[in-house]
């Protein structure tokens, strides 16, 4: 069983630095000083991590893998891609939750989980293209990274905690050269309170996932004071689950503190459980 961290764990993957700056500021992230392929930022407690990938699918795939390894993310880590996108359907500045993402190149679609109670009105398909979109043939929103981001992260984490959120920056007839970096930062900045309000909902899903794989209560405490073989550890885990479900006596740690060997602890627990 891989080590699962009990604290909240969010990984932000952002294409452009002007998109990232408002998030870095809001979460008080600091650039980590290691020599890495992509700039990576983290907060003091290691809850929030962020990388800036650069434009395009290859870059975001590589940056995501780099962040996964550098930040020791696990399968309960939340992954969020936030960025600007084009659309003919939504208004400038609107935040859109993506529940389908299609690669314009392969035609393949992937389906981010529709997180309940997220309270984002706008939901849409995202079409990921390889060059800036000018025609907007579909009603969905357009970006250059989303498909690859979801394709990679869905192999690293549970799909229920992977989010793609787009903020509409342009539409048909927009002159892309006039979308200044300050305007991009402003678009993201405006949505920071909304983005932060989403987090507790996603944290609760992540906690649910952690609860499913964390070691049973007292397991680590007991293994610290007595030496258990591999097979004894397997038995101990099973007995602890049974113990906490049935609670044959209240204070397990106190009861076993007088037992000098791992075998005696296991024997005591088995006898107590048989009596219950």
């Amino acid at each position, binding site marked *: 069983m891989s080590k699962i961290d009990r604290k909240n764990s969010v990984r932000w993957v952002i294409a452009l630095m002007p998109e990232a700056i408002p998030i870095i500021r809001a979460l008080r992230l600091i650039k980590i000083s290691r020599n890495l392929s992509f700039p990576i930022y983290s907060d003091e407690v290691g809850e929030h991590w962020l990388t800036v990938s650069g434009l395009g699918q290859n870059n975001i795939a590589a940056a995501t893998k780099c962040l996964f390894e550098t930040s020791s993310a696990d*399968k309960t880590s939340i992954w969020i891609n936030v960025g600007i996108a084009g659309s003919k359907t939504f208004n400038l500045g609107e935040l859109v939750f993506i*529940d*389908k993402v299609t690669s314009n190149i392969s035609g393949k*679609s992937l*389906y981010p*989980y*529709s997180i*309940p*109670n997220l309270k984002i009105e706008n*939901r849409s*398909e995202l079409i990921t293209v390889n060059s800036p979109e000018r025609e907007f043939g579909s009603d969905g929103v357009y970006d250059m990274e989303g498909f690859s981001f979801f394709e990679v992260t*869905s*192999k690293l*984490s*549970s*799909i*229920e905690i992977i989010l793609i959120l787009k903020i509409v920056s342009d539409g048909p007839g927009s002159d892309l050269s006039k979308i200044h970096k300050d305007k991009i930062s402003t678009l993201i900045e405006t949505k920071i309170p909304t983005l932060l309000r989403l987090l507790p909902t996603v944290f609760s*899903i992540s906690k*649910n*996932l952690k*609860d*499913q*794989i964390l070691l*049973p209560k007292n397991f680590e405490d007991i293994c610290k004071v007595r030496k258990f073989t591999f097979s004894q550890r397997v038995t101990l885990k099973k007995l602890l*689950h*049974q113990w*906490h*479900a*049935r609670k044959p006596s209240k204070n397990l740690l106190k009861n076993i503190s007088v037992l000098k060997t791992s075998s005696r602890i296991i024997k005591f627990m088995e006898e107590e*459980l048989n009596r219950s």
Partner: protein
Amino acid sequence: MIDTIYIEKEINDSPKTIQILRKFKNARKISIDRYGEIFNRKNQNFRVQKIKPNLILARKHKGFVLPTPEGFGIGDQKNFYFSHMYNCIYDCSYCFLQGMYSSANYLIFVNFEDFKREIKGVMERNLGESITFFSGYDCDSVAMESVTNFINDFIPTFRGHDNALIELRTKSAQTRIFEKLEPISNCVIAYSLMPEELAGKLDKKAPSVSLRISAMKKLSAMGWKIGLRFDPLIYSDNWKIKYQSLFKEIYSEIKEESIHSVSLGSLRFPKTYFNKIFSYHRQEEVFSRLDINGGNLVSYDKDLESEMNTFCKNELLKYCNENKVFHCYS
């Protein structure tokens, strides 16, 4: 309420799809190629999705009617099952679907006509033999009726085919659909039951056992045949008293002649299913007495299992004939 409906492109215009979508006008509809893109994908979590499942509408291509596993039956010579739907609106802690599927989304196969054609084919190929068709193996047969119209669609297929029995397995207390239909003698509405105290803890989101008994009473009075399904039997403190009291309550409310069959089964899981289910419900006492018994099966200790089956069967025989009692071990 359903927030999101995934719809396979090829059944977008099917009458059943249109009928179902009419009930969810505000849901977001997402077009998909095949249901497996959502339902069978890796790295998704049944437990998280169970908080608020979405709906998937799809077409089943093959395997409409399948033989039941060995040991599954209520007396007929041949036994088959079919599943127009996967997953269930209830959230029973011991439900094996949690171990079988990676998604908790409701999946409805809208091509009912193909199921019915295959059922008729099985009936024709087995003329002169008694057959039971089980529905409700992978879902609750009645609970989603307001969405699927399944019973209304399927009951006429069985009318007049007296050698073929259909079992509708359920925990639903809804009786409205059966009130609208003329009862047929070859349909068994089979209720999953356990002592109320246990159901209160384990059968989350399902109607109480007393409501299920009220529904059985109402339907039996209308002429529908009732099945009693004590599968799984659940161990707890004073389990003998609890089961005695449950059997007494049922038979005091429902006439024995209305009861088509009674079946008993132990709490048991294939090991891989159990491991998944256990990770979702680590604190449930119900799982704390199970262990690997006989290779791939997780169940109670064999002696306890045998004691529970024997005790419950003997208690039931105080109220009904032995030829109505079946033991399910698949």
